[in-house]
């Protein structure tokens, strides 16, 4: 056997010897896409097509703006939830965080630009810190995410009640203006969504991004390979809290006021959006781009239900069916890929 050569750039050394004559097998480079991974995208496109067929008048920029504005809350919260779920956990406290920041924004924000900036930053910080606390409880105190975040939900909800006793407050007009502006005709909310996707795709390519998936895929292996479960999870839940806080902030713009229970109805849709998009509850597989697709799918399903003239009571029913279908398809695709192993 020929002696191995050392690449001149490799750190620390096997002393360079005779260059190797061995060239390992090169595998074909093409993109290997599992058809099952495409289901959410196909579903989304299908839904859009069906809706446009039903009402072709909707095919204009105005609709895009309305839809983007309506979608942003769910998109934000689903983005955050993705981080938690990718690590193999879940964050049920997002409801409380939304209620808290929503109430804060509705009561504390004035028309003064300095005040606005202060509160935006503060709310962002609250989200990060609250999320980090979640991460601490889960990673360091080793409390299971389900219970831990349910408990923090209770705490954040209590704080929301402290800020705002019942529905009320108002949105600061300059802030609303700022969020609702369009740049070059593209609505602000759409820009935010696109920027989110862009940032995520970059994050996925960082070392921390890889570590996130690794911890979710097999935490034990990741730790043995040198990753810190504590640091990764705290970051993941901090990000989740941040996005929940932002969602609460945006909700003031969307609804125009605040409510101490604003977030309660958004917890389960946030998980549903992530799951429908194809991210696995077990962690390690999926991504924010998928969750955003999942959120959009849910919104368009709601639209379809509305168009079909079906009473909104049935909405959770249809969503439930879709949820099961989505997950079943995902699980099936996963099992198929496992069968291809052992070659």
């Amino acid at each position, binding site marked *: 056997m020929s002696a191995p050569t050392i690449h001149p750039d490799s750190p620390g050394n096997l002393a360079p010897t005779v260059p190797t004559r061995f060239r390992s097998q090169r595998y074909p480079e093409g993109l290997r896409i599992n058809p099952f991974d495409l289901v959410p995208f196909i579903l989304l496109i299908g839904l859009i097509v069906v809706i446009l067929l039903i009402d072709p008048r909707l095919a204009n920029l105005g609709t895009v703006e309305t839809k983007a504005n309506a979608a942003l809350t769910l998109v934000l919260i689903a983005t955050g939830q993705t981080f938690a779920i990718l690590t193999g956990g879940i964050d049920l406290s997002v409801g409380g965080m939304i209620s808290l920041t929503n109430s804060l924004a509705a009561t504390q924000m004035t028309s003064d630009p300095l005040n606005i900036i202060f509160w935006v930053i503060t709310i962002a910080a609250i989200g990060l810190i609250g999320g980090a606390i979640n991460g601490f*409880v889960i990673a360091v*105190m*080793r*409390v*299971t995410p*389900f*219970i*831990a975040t*349910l*408990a*923090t*939900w*209770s*705490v954040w*909800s*209590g*704080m*929301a*009640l*402290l800020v705002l006793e019942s529905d009320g407050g108002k949105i600061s007009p300059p802030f609303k203006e700022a969020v609702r502006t369009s740049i070059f005709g593209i609505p602000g909310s759409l820009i935010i969504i696109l920027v989110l996707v862009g940032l995520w795709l970059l994050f996925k390519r960082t070392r921390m991004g890889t570590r996130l998936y690794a911890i979710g895929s097999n935490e034990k292996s990741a730790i043995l390979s040198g990753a810190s479960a504590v640091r990764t999870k705290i970051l993941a839940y901090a990000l989740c809290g941040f996005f929940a806080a932002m969602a609460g902030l945006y909700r003031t713009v969307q609804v125009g006021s605040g409510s101490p229970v604003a977030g309660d109805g958004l917890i*389960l849709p946030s*998980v*549903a959006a992530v*799951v429908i998009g194809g991210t696995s*509850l*077990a962690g390690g597989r999926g991504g924010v781009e998928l969750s955003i697709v999942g959120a959009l799918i849910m919104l368009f399903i709601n639209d379809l239900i509305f168009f079909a003239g079906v*009473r909104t*009571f*049935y*909405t*959770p*029913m*249809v*969503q*439930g*069916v879709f*949820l*099961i279908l989505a*997950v*079943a398809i995902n*699980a099936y695709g996963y*099992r198929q890929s496992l069968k291809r192993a052992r070659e």
Partner: protein
Amino acid sequence: MNGWAINSNTLKWFYRQNRNIILSYVGMLILLTAVSLYRPGFGLGNPIALRSLLLEAAVIAIVSLGQTLVILSGGVDLSLPWTFGGAAVIMTVLTRGQDSPALWAIPLILGGCFVVGLINGSIIAYLQVSPVIVTLAVSGILLGAVSGFGIGSTGVIYGTPPPAIVQLASGRWLEVPNLVWLGIALTIAATLLLSFSGFGRRLYAIGTSQQVSLYSGINIPRITVIVYILSAVLDGIAGILVAGKLGQAYLGMGDQYLFISVAAVVIGGTSILGGAGHFIGTIGGALLLSVLTAAIPVLNLPRPFQLIVFGLVILLAVFFATNQTAREA
């Protein structure tokens, strides 16, 4: 271990096996004593207050029995609020405050719960979908179905359950509330099931490792389906009884019990991953939660702080309960 000699070794072994369960009872006692000292008459030394604490604990325990079984199997039953609330509401609507319709209405409702559990368990077992998703989705479907058929709407309060049920739920026998007797009976039944029956053995096996259970010849689908059926039916019974106790029913009745049932199970030392724990532990958790929910108003905290304190205490309780299993991992 040879023989049944009770010596320090046996006690040590017993403690180590059941550490988590014991901790929950100890925690409850500490909390009870602390609050009783702060506000005399709260619990210790006041039989009437104790009775009401026990009653609340019994309600929690009854509601949490189904959840205990499901969590032991490695899953979770998020459809509790809807089977609980749905059963309560449908019962009041169908019986309109009379006893005789109850004779057919209640079996019908429980039959419906049976079907819900059957669907839950079947999808989980045969389609291999996560229990979180399935129970959530199925119950959402249920909610839509129930609302859509005009049987009930959210937010509306339906009065008067049949008097027999009210009597059953609020009555007492030998100075002890009926529901507490029911709790005791269920504890005995649960212990027989979990500690002494083949079903219990298989349940623990499945909760520990599905794959090993498969290779050992356990009929996983059958056990799974049975467990979810039991959970749904027990939730329905609990809903009906609580409606009787309250004298009214509304669809959102069960929402708070979801968190409470899971908390009672986990605080009671059962691992959320399944395979380890016991209903006796859940009782301990139920007792602790009962004392906690009673203690918070006593401390004269405004509602916001109630929520905050509640969350914090749960966190601590679960931290101490799960720390053991987490450390051993």
